[in-house]
């Protein structure tokens, strides 16, 4: 059974397992390949499209109406659209918002994004949930499902691919003068400090603009550097701290970034987000694995084991850190409990942040856990100054609950140990 809701020419989405969805084109014409994933955020489609972590992925929005508030120049998270393709149930023909500058349809077309509307996105989502994220092709030019299936099966997988080097900046720059302006919304609860107090090097593996904005807000002068920048170069700039950003693809495929982080670790305070978290965890001796269908949305509950509170977070990742793989549990630092270090649910129930011993960098503490599936959402090294989270405290899109982590980074740079001590920066 097929259906077409939009006005555009027909478009096909074919998954590598042969599933086929017929809809209408609602972006640029063309054919695009990628891993098909879904995002459950009800707002923030433009931030999603421009998040470089979506490189190589065809993004499905689970909320049916997309494009209602149009597109604008301020809500972008990078220099362009990185999602390989876009899948929606109903793209709004007209936009209505005081901030809208054009319709989302025209934006997609202008930026060459292949997009499809009018398909049963819930069916697609359920399929991905059950069968896992997989390769797919989205085409407005080839109407033959069999031909598309052959093409998608011949396309490359995300696993093992370095997508980072293609998305980061190639020239270093200082976040500030050239930074895209942040939209002035009428009520901003963010607290801006005065002159920057910290010099921070940010490795741009596909960093979202809002990370830099939040670092700046926390008092950092941020120098954004290409992901291939060496540790020596970075350390030569004498930063107070080094930041490792989010980015696309398989963490196991970006060995150079991992090598850099290993070099920096112990020498300068390190903060990592998303891919940066995976890099830090790998450096601390962890293994990573691919989640069946990832976490993508703005409603993921994360427990901060140190504060005992829950933050609702924005997430976008397909790979995950296996905390238990870092090393053996240190019961005396884990409230005397001897649960399996890898059984995160047990630690959440106990309300204890367990500590394990890594081979090279001493004690590592589990600080944050995703409560939906009890996966690792944040770690902190206790013997070297470093911490990281799997999710996106900078939000954009999504809730601001975890903004305190930017303040935590400044405290880490101040040499304090109680970095999660208070709810600041909110």
């Amino acid at each position, binding site marked *: 059974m097929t259906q077409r809701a939009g006005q555009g020419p027909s478009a096909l989405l074919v998954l590598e397992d042969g599933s086929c969805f017929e809809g209408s084109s609602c972006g640029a014409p063309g054919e695009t390949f990628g891993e098909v994933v879904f995002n459950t955020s009800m707002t923030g489609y433009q931030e999603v499209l421009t998040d470089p972590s979506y490189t190589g992925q065809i993004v499905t929005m689970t909320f*049916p109406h997309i494009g209602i508030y149009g597109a604008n120049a301020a809500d972008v998270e990078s220099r362009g659209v990185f999602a390989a393709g876009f899948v929606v149930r109903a793209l709004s023909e007209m936009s*209505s918002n*005081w901030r809208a500058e054009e319709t989302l349809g025209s934006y997609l077309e202008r930026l060459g994004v292949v997009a499809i509307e009018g398909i049963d996105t819930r069916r697609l989502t359920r399929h991905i949930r059950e069968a896992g994220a997989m390769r797919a092709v989205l085409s407005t030019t080839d109407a033959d499902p069999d031909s598309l299936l052959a093409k998608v099966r011949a396309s490359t997988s995300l696993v093992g691919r370095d997508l980072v080097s293609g998305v980061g900046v190639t020239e270093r720059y200082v976040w500030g003068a050239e930074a895209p302006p942040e939209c002035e919304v009428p009520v901003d609860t963010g607290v801006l400090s005065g002159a920057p107090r910290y010099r921070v090097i940010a490795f741009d593996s596909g960093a979202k603009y809002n990370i830099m904005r939040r670092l700046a807000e926390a008092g950092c002068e941020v120098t954004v550097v290409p992901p291939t920048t060496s540790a020596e170069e970075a350390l030569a700039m004498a930063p107070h701290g080094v930041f490792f950003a989010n980015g696309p693809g398989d963490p196991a495929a970006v060995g150079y970034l991992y090598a850099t982080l290993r070099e920096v670790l112990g020498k300068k305070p390190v903060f990592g987000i998303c891919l940066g978290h995976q890099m830090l965890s790998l450096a601390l001796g962890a293994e990573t694995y691919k989640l069946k269908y990832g976490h993508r949305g703005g409603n993921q509950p994360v427990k901060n084991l140190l504060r005992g509170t829950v933050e609702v977070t924005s997430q976008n990742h397909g790979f995950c850190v296996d905390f238990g793989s870092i090393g053996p549990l240190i019961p005396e630092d884990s409230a005397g409990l001897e649960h399996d270090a890898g059984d995160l649910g047990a630690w959440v129930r106990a309300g204890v942040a367990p500590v394990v011993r890594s081979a090279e960098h001493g004690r590592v503490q589990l600080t944050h856990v995703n*409560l939906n599936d009890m996966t690792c959402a944040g770690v902190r090294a206790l013997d070297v100054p470093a911490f990281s989270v799997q999710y996106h405290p900078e939000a954009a899109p999504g809730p601001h609950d975890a903004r305190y982590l930017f303040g935590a980074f400044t405290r880490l740079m101040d040499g304090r140990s109680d970095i999660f001590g208070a709810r600041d920066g909110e």
Partner: protein
Amino acid sequence: MPRRDDIKKVLIIGSGPIVIGQACEFDYSGAQACKVLREDGYQVVLVNSNPATIMTDPEFADRTYVEPITVEFVEKVIAAERPDALLPTLGGQTGLNCAVALAEAGVLEKYGVELIGATLPVIKKGEDRRLFSEAMARIGLDTPCSAYAYAIADAEEFVASVGWPVVIRPSFTLGGAGGGIAYNIDELRQICAAGIALSPVNEVLVEESVLGWKEYEMEVMRDRNDNCVIVCSIENFDAMGVHTGDSVTVAPALTLTDREYQVLRDASFAIMREIGVETGGSNVQFAVNPTDGRVVVIEMNPRVSRSSALASKATGFPIAKIAAKLAVGYTLDEIPNDITKATPASFEPSIDYTVVKVPRWAFEKFPGTDTTLTTRMKSVGEVMAMGRTFPEALGKAMRSLENGRTGLGADGKDVFEEHHFDEHLTVPNEQRLFYIAEAFRRGWTVEGVAEMTQIDPWFIDQVRRMVEVERTIAGRQLASLTAPELREAKQHGLSDAQIAYLTGSVEGVVRATRLDLGVRATFKAVDTCAAEFFAGTPYYYKTYEEEDEATRSARKKAMILGAGPNRIGQGIEFDYCCVHAAYALSEAGYETIMVNCNPETVSTDYDTSDKLYFEPLTFEDVMDIVDVERPDGVLVTFGGQTPLKLAHALHDAGVPILGTSPEAIDLAEDRRRFAEVLDRLGIAYPAAGTANTLDEAVAVAARIGYPLLVRPSYVLGGRGMVIAYNEEYLLRYMHKATEVSPDHPVLLDRFLEGAIEVDVDAVCDGDSVYIGGVMEHIEEAGIHSGDSACCIPPFSLGEDTIARIKEHTRALALELGVHGLMNVQFAVKDESVYVLEVNPRASRTVPFVSKATGLPLAKVAARVMAGQKLADMVLRAEDRELGRFCVKEAVMPFGRFPGTDSVLGPEMKSTGEVMGVAPDFPGAYGKSQLAIDYSLPREGAAFISVCDRDKRGIVPVARQLHALGFRIMSTKGTAKLLQASGLSVEEVRKVHEGRPNVVDRIVNGDVQLVINTPFGRETRSDGYHIRTAAVQHGVSNITTLAAAQASVAAIEAIVRRDLGVIALQDFNGGGA
């Protein structure tokens, strides 16, 4: 953080009777709270005066008190039960106000009762507009500029500084009662005067207007670890200026960018923290300027609300249930998500569909009242619909309203006032959506309509799309429509009935055609998480997509059709019956499937039945579910008229109907055939006739004589029903009646003046009959039974009469072949018993009878319908001595509809009911009056003015009032009569006799009780002015002699005796 073990017993205060602004959503929230607290091992003590609620079923609490929600009575409950804590946030404004009053009166301190969920300072800060504005300023949030006024001069002064228009909000009133928008000095004076009078603290807030701004609501939860989540955002379709209860609303918020949305989210949390709501749910309302995004905070409610019920149904996140758990110390992450079972409640639901709520109004019941929509809520109910897209959801909502429409116009029932077309767009009113759609049929532009309505252009454009899709099929032959075209129509919310109208076909053919073409409904789960996780709870809505998620189990299944939106004549009582049916059928081994579209109800709680379909109750929508579920039986007789009117079509479509057959239902409604049944059984009934024309009516009247009860056939709640005392009146009625129901004849019955009306609810299994209760009405026949107070057991009927009534009931049930519930209305006049009406279905009084007798009648009936026999059930003896009197009293909404007459008649106007329990009738009646806002006075002056018919009967009433210490005032005629009886009476002027007159005296507060009985239907008479003034000034106002007699006895009971409190659990015996 673990639950609190220092609390063992929790007191919950309900919201009392259903009134405008406070409906059965608080039964839903309260029932959930009771259930979840008891599951956790807490003892629950409940006070709620509303017997029609599920929560007051004895099994929902350890101790249930159907008592007035007043400090006086709740203190008695506290003294008797000694609870550790009071949870005040689940009983609406009534419960919250009572909790505040208890705290301020020192009762809570005296008995060591802790307020949990919201403390006194929190409630004050949230509710007191001054404290609230100050709190907002502290956290840097804007509120509209405002000032308090205690006198009109204060308001005038403020307006001088901010300009027109201004919004006036009285402090501490329900649903914005007494509020309004003033555009000029006259309106300002008028609204302020009324608002100051209505406010319990005689205070109104005068506010800068944010008319035309976008309005949003955020449903927030916070636990004692300071974890906060937004359960749901709601955007109002109507711009600021229309009360959110009267607005079409949409979930989630649609027209905000993520940045703007997060601003509202952050602000909501900041407000929770600043106000200090430690645990529970709150509702925060914002206005957003559409041109620059400026945000102002409008208000917050530190309690569950109508919107939280909507949010719960819209997302699957049960706010009240979780609020109750948070109040006893749990944290959000300790509570599992009911739907996914695997993930915690400490998250924010993501939905992958669109939810639309549309209010249901009942202006037709209140002629003369202003029907424009303002900041003062006027709707009596609401429907919710879900679709993947906004047009689909809106279309479904528009056909759920039970107003005779099958969608957003295009159904052959569109009527537009051409001379006032523009006003219907610019001034918010109940018809506005139809005018918007029509504007597009007439080629208007989105910009034009958006500007006139101030509704966001995106919404307006969606309506335009719906009309565009409608146009693609209008005027075409059904056979020429392709599958994609039909699918597109269905995806834009068009009903089969609308498609039939547009193509000149009939609904059944449209259905068959589209099924042939493969255009079938699919069902999607409401799962809180946009399909991210597996959903274990089967809660579905219908759409037209590729994948169908509904799965049919192999179990024996019963489908229960709910009652649809609350409206006058069909309220919570029918939801009560449906919920009981679900419980009983589940116990009888059925898989229960609930279908309903009212988000306020317990029936649409996914916990109530095994499966929930949140769908309109139309033939199309029900059949689509039947096609999937293929139930073994469909229950149509518990949800009032809504499902009953589907009985035939479903039966004809081969759907098995549970219980009483549609033929038997018909037989009872067909007057001629029913008269034959009565003749055969030798049961008397008032002489009657049917007329299709004016001449026929006059002829019938000549045959049976005046007075006559006249009404259109097939009506709900006595719509259009009057008593004609003479030919002149009959002619006037007949002239108007043709407008009421042109397809149906007018029915004329001999009106048994002065007769005592009696209601009986019974269950029949085909072999035997169980009489649930015999109710004697206080008001005599002629007042709609829904508006009349009644008493169990009868307080004045002789045993012989009662025996005859029971005998007739049994004979009728068996003769009609009733399988299930039956309600019979009798009139007793001069020792003769007449049958007025038989309804072989659940009646409005079933919950009251169940509470009063302790026997769950609806459950018994459902078991019978599932095939069990009464003989096999252990039922308490029908004729047992109850040892108490229970009085049900109707609650009238006249205060909400200024200008409408408050006189009672054969057309039902009440919105809800209360019950009073006492060892004797006057005590029970007294309690029932105290349970209503306009409580009985205990001293002061009584104004008495009665029609000639009641002159003789009023004398002892006046004498008794005098003996109780009341001063008596009367107008000339009545005064003369009373003086002749030796009473001292102050004579006051009638309205036309100059001033000061009686109305002035009422307005000035010189009168505490008004007894004014009208004759026939006078318009704009003295009586009208007197009654209206009494309603507006909150003076007890009695319009029948019978009620006057009962009231005076009740006042005596209240004044002379200490009325105790009685728990339902202490009623003799227990269980069914």
